[in-house]
């Protein structure tokens, strides 16, 4: 019986546990709840992925009201993959959170941290699973509001302004999204994605729908930090608590990208977007610009969190680029990068979290000689960095391979060149860190630094290990990504 209700449980269990955490109030208990829920959610997500891979999409009408009258949950391969990403990151990050939160957040507020984390998880999962455009908005807001709070919990006071800016930009984005939804609703009378997909072609060439698409695009681009709408991201990632950065960097923008995929390939799946909208080439240009600007700015950052934040902007560029090819290979490349980037970025940010715990700084100068003093942490960082570059045997290589292949399939030479060129920029910023950590002596008279505790190292290395494992054997992930891409491109909702 439980199996039939997995889609509902996926979201509802974290949702129920959030008020529980609030009522429990003890940091330890809250942490335990959050941990248990995260792992439970991962189990659910995995079984959903398996179910979907075998039996095709699953639909779950909430309240037994059939779509389009009620809200429908719909899990297909992409959705399930994103669910797995989000829950896996959550599950791995939580053990890490115990020590890191105790270090960075006042203990009388820690239970609120876990409450917020669970809400954020709820929101992200809700976005990934829902089949209703307005329901997506509601869960988008749940995840956004909670992430604003999470970010503002950072130690630095700049975390506050970062959160505020994110809030303003995020709300504008969400409002744009709602305008888009409203326009679509106006022309079709429905909010269900599948229903929209069947009804949209009839009105696709109206100016209203064109603008609806434009507003949806802009709104979601704000959320996923597509260049040049990325300005909220660097500060938000830089000043948020380490755990939050690791979690959000690996999930929040990914889920936004996912929502983007949903809109473009499910809702507008039956419409030939390339015919009606100049959006696709624009997206491609923006993605490329993001790749270069992000990487180029990252080179000049001295705060490592900020450096990685800019690198995220570049990586988001890769994903959107993959989508903008609108070919199976390109979309698969985008989806696989979604997964891969989540792995490597969380490894990197978790490693930085260890550094913060021990050093209290992520300034590049503080890392002198750290390769010797915290060998395991820095080794994980290097693995993540290599993956960013796209060195073989890491996941980054797989993504890059697919994106380049997609570009070549279309015969778009210069783009293939640009992809590798921008990955070479990654060499520069990653290598700055490596040189400092390994080839500079520790500053004179610096306090002895020991390795991070096992509770923090283990999650870091799980992520680093995963980014190697899935770099060596990418068949499983690629199968899912390709399957998802084929499914989406066919436009069958």
């Amino acid at each position: 019986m439980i199996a039939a209700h997995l889609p509902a449980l996926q979201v509802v269990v974290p949702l129920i546990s959030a008020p529980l955490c609030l009522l429990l109030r003890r940091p330890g208990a809250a942490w335990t709840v959050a941990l248990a829920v995260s792992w439970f959610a991962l189990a659910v997500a995995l079984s959903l992925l398996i179910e979907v891979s075998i039996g095709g999409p699953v639909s779950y009408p909430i309240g037994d009201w059939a779509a389009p009258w009620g809200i429908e949950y719909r899990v297909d391969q992409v959705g399930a993959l994103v669910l797995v990403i989000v829950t896996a990151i959550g599950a791995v990050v939580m053990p890490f959170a115990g020590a890191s939160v105790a270090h960075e957040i006042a203990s009388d507020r820690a239970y609120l941290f876990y409450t917020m984390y669970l809400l954020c998880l709820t929101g992200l999962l809700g976005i990934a699973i829902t089949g209703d455009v307005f329901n997506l908005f509601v869960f988008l807001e749940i995840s956004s509001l909670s992430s604003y709070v999470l970010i503002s919990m950072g130690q630095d006071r700049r975390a506050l302004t970062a959160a505020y800016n994110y809030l303003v930009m995020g709300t504008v984005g969400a409002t744009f999204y709602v305008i888009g939804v409203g326009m679509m609703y106006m022309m079709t009378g429905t909010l269900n994605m599948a229903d929209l997909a069947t009804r949209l072609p009839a009105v696709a060439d109206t100016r209203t729908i064109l603008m609806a698409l434009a507003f949806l695009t802009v709104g979601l681009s704000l959320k996923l930090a597509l260049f040049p709408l990325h300005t909220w991201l660097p500060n938000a990632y830089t000043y948020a608590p380490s755990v939050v950065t690791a979690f959000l960097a690996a999930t929040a923008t990914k889920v936004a990208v996912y929502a983007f995929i949903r809109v473009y390939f499910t809702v507008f799946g039956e419409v030939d977007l390339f015919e009606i909208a100049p959006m696709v080439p624009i997206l491609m240009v923006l993605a490329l610009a993001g790749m270069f600007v992000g990487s180029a700015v990252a080179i000049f950052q001295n705060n490592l969190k900020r450096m990685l934040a800019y690198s995220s902007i570049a990586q988001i560029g890769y994903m959107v680029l993959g989508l903008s090819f609108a070919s199976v290979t390109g979309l698969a490349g985008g989806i696989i990068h979604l997964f891969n980037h989540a792995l490597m970025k969380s490894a990197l940010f978790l490693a930085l979290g260890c550094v913060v715990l021990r050093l209290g700084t992520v300034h590049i100068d503080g890392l002198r000689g750290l390769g010797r003093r915290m060998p395991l942490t820095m080794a994980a960082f290097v693995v993540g960095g290599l993956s960013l570059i796209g060195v073989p045997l890491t996941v980054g290589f797989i993504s890059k391979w697919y994106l380049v292949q997609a570009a070549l399939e279309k015969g778009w030479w210069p783009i293939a060149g640009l992809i590798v060129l921008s990955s070479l920029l990654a060499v520069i910023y990653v290598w700055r860190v490596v040189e400092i950590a390994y080839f500079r002596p520790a500053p004179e008279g610096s306090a002895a630094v020991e390795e991070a505790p096992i509770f923090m190292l283990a999650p870091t290395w799980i992520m680093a290990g995963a980014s190697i494992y899935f770099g060596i054997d990418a068949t499983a992930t690629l199968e899912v990504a390709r399957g998802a891409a084929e499914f989406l491109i066919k436009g069958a909702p």
Partner: protein
Amino acid sequence: MDVLGLFNYWIVIVLMMIGFYIVISHGNLVKKVVGLNVFQVSVFVFFISMSKVRGGTAPILEEGIEVYSNPLPHVLILTAIVVGVATTALALGLVVRIRDAYGTIEADEIIEPEEDGA
């Protein structure tokens, strides 16, 4: 095209843009929040406008009434209003904290003396 029929929407759009303008052009953090609210309320009005049916009444079932306005946008907007107020509350909470930390609520006065000290 029925210009009169669209006039309603245009007014709403003007309102939206006023709100949006406040958000992006003003440096005062509270004013930004107000702008955000204006923007959102206008969007709500936009939704409600589309739900109106000429000659319809409020969507509460009663004997003898055939034409009701569309209840679905009402529901959506109820939700959206709540989301809006939630956002406002959080934003204002942040403003208070920012004021505590920096002593100002003007965006351009929030300057950081030290660079990259995190």
